[in-house]
């Protein structure tokens, strides 16, 4: 959409061709009702000076921004097909300047990778390097390729094509909306076509993940911690465009973590988890060990470890069962709780 072409269209034609531009006029407080037959220039020529001043409209900026917005949205629709499949990380340097010893790390979609290391060891920096698609221009000097190539500057800055979605423990819902209104808002902002189906799918999945179910009419701020996290995970898995999901621990309470991870990788996401919870860490295919700002080593989850995982899951289940009994006013009896031992 060139500027010349845009200026030739009437506002009505513009809305027909690019429906989202209507919101653009509204968001910029530019009144157009009743003037749909005008071109953009005619609209401003006939607009009261006072309206322009009161609504703080910068006509020149508005027109150039509109062109930019149409281009942006068009590219957004076009890029819907392309999905990122692999991340390749090449070594950089430790905090003290020595080179990291690994050759390269490849992560593909469907992979679950845990990132482990003491506090302050550089986990966040690694995640930031991935999010930013570092090109030897971050403090670690690491190089990160997406689908085998270095990202162009405009791809790194793109707000709508962000690589990484983040889920962390201290995240809350702050909007004053019901579950349905919330999903509707998110789906509308993503401009998906089959909105109702997607909303229904997220809602069902979230209920599957949550220990206790919830309805579509509950305000999101009234959901329990487990329900909130279940909704956030289902929403991120299904509606977020980011190919990489970054998880900063998932608390054990009120959510089925195995199902949550299965949902994420089922939606072709790459899952990176910063965790020290043995169940989560062992659910990963491999774990990246970080120390002193550098990647020390990459450990594949062994068969032996997998068998520990099934024991841990059993322990976890025992705890969950006890929790549920307490919740429903039951007494716990030693013989019953540990009879399968």
């Amino acid at each position, binding site marked *: 959409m060139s500027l010349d072409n845009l200026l030739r269209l009437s506002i009505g034609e513009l809305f027909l061709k690019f429906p989202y531009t209507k919101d*653009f006029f509204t968001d910029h407080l530019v009144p157009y009702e009743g003037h749909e037959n005008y071109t953009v220039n005619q609209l401003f020529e006939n607009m009261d000076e006072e309206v322009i001043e009161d609504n*703080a409209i910068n006509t020149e900026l508005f027109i150039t*921004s509109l062109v930019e917005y149409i281009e942006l949205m068009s590219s957004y629709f076009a890029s819907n097909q392309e999905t990122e499949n692999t991340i390749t990380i090449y070594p950089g340097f430790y905090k003290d300047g020595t080179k990291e010893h690994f050759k390269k790390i490849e992560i593909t979609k469907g992979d679950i990778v845990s990132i482990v290391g003491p506090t302050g060891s550089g986990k966040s920096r690694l995640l930031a390097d991935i999010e930013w698609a570092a090109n030897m221009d971050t403090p670690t000097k690491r190089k990160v390729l997406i689908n085998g190539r270095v990202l162009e500057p405009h791809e790194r800055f793109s*707000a709508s094509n962000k690589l990484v979605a983040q889920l962390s423990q201290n995240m809350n*819902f*702050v*909007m004053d909306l019901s579950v349905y209104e919330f999903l509707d808002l*998110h789906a509308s902002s993503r401009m998906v076509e089959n909105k109702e189906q997607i909303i229904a799918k997220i809602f069902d999945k979230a209920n599957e993940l949550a220990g206790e179910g919830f309805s579509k009419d509950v305000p999101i701020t009234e959901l329990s911690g487990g329900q909130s996290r279940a909704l956030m995970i289902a929403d991120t898995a299904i509606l977020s465009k980011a190919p990489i999901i970054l998880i900063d621990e998932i608390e054990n309470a009120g959510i089925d973590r195995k199902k949550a991870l299965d949902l994420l990788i089922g939606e072709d996401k790459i899952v990176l988890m910063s965790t020290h919870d043995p169940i989560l860490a062992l659910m990963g295919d491999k774990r990246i060990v970080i120390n002193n700002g550098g990647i020390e080593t990459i450990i594949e989850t062994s068969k032996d470890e997998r068998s520990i995982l099934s024991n841990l899951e059993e322990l976890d289940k025992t705890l969950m069962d006890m929790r549920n009994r307490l919740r429903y006013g039951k007494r716990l009896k030693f013989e019953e709780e540990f009879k399968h031992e």
Partner: protein
Amino acid sequence: MDLITVSGPPSSGKTSVLIKTIENFLKRNISVGVVKFDCLFTDDDIYFQKLGIPVRKGLSGSLCPDHYFVSNIEEVVEWGLKENVDVLITESAGLCNRCSPYIQDIKAVCIIDNLSGINTPKKIGPMLKSADIVVITKGDIVSQAEREVFTMKVQSVNPKAIIMHVNGLSGQGAYELSTFIHDETKHVETLEGMKLRYPMPAALCSYCLGETRIGKSHQLGNIRKIDLSDIK
């Protein structure tokens, strides 16, 4: 010396983001000076001082802080040149979200936060709409979906801007911000003859001049009345 003007609603995290960004400048041996504009009170200068950099603050008192900013920016630039810093950052908080202190050809950064509500981008006027870089803060405490929706809302009022997410507490994103907020080839010697990106709003009524009495007979100058007639 490069000049960067930073603006944003009160409590959006401007100072926290700037401190994390400046730390990254200092690590790269880029010297920085800060001038903080506020209305009644600020002790943010103390936080900047802790970084060991030259800082000044300006309190506008009874004047609109943005008008005060424009009337003083030329002197501020002279101060920065005298201090011989590589980057001079001005930080100001608009009070009514209508003004913006941005100057043509000078990098303009707007800082807003995820908690401010999804209609806020629409409410902020030129301060957001004409910024070159929009930094969104407090992303660590809201859900991914809310972050995405908020980002889209910002993008729809300012599609030209580079939109960045920075965590003012952990500093996540501040390194990246520091790499393109500053243009080493840019040398500002004077602002004489330069222009604001957008005019400040008209405000010249008796209350601007200190009137405190209420009532029609005390209202002079640029007065406008609210429409409270019955809705048909």
